[in-house]
């Protein structure tokens, strides 16, 4: 067996997944080849480090912490919403009042020219002789 084939099969050898004859071949190669032996040792140690990391347990309070965060998030969401409502309501009332006043003034202004139309300007009043007594009436007297 050459080094390339040996190194290719190191994983399977380590996990015992190779057929028995191949296992024997890799084993005998490792006994004679220093460079492959070094790689195999490195792989074994690295495997041990991975196992140690894998076996580390998560924080036992993780569930509680996550649920508390979700609760907090939901409450913050509701709080934000109620704050928005609390701020929006007076603003809406103010805007409605302002709009009502504005339209009131507008409506008032619309009806004003009609009232003015009844009034006879001063210039017209001078030439308007309707209110004067008729000359004929005076002559008849």
């Amino acid at each position, binding site marked *: 067996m050459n080094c390339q084939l040996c190194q290719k099969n*190191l994983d399977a050898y380590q996990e015992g997944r190779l057929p028995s004859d191949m296992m024997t071949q890799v084993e005998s190669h490792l006994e004679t080849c220093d460079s492959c032996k070094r790689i195999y040792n490195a792989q074994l140690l690295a495997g041990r480090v991975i196992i140690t990391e894998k076996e580390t347990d998560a*924080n036992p309070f*993780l569930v509680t912490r996550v649920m508390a965060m979700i609760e907090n998030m939901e409450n913050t969401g509701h709080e934000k919403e109620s704050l928005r409502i609390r701020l929006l309501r007076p603003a809406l009332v103010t805007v409605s009042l302002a709009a009502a006043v504005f339209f009131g003034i507008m409506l008032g202004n619309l009806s004003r020219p009609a009232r003015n139309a009844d009034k006879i300007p001063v210039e017209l009043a001078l030439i308007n002789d309707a209110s004067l007594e008729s000359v004929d009436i005076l002559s008849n007297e």
Partner: protein
Amino acid sequence: MEEFEIISDILKGDKEKFRFIVEKYQQMVFRTCMGFVHDKDDADDLTQEVFIKAYQSLPKFKMESAFSTWLYRISVNASLNKIRKTSGRSFFQRLGSVFSGEDKNDPLFSASDMEDPENILIRQEHFHWLQKALDSLPGKQRTAIILSKYDDLPQKEIAEIMDITEGAVEALLQRAKKNLRTRLSDSDSPFVVK
């Protein structure tokens, strides 16, 4: 109760049911995060972040794939983002934690009263070297090797999580293993028995 039923209930507003999801998958998510960040506290924070992200994105879960596959995707993305953000941290913070003795509180390095301090040091050195070797791998190779070695997932599932073909996973794993072998058998590697 079926998992999809639980998810439907959560989506209908029964958020308390999310507790079942966290309880069931916490170790799985933690293990994946640990494979990326190699620090218990960071992995704990990241796990928490993953579940919050999953809760917020739950309406987007189409129930077409397994929930675990979807959760793995979130875990991998969150871990890669975390690594990207803290890439400058590694060296100086590690150095700091070695001097301040923070590492001693890490279960990875906690030793029994009888353990030889030299063995602890050797273990620390192995750990840091493996971390360096894993961190030097390109993102996809790293993801494939972590899902394979830390989570013991079959190539089919890794392919589904990474949204690539099984053949591509095989190729990524082969390249990752080759790169790791090269790094770990470097002449200055502590894994090499001289």
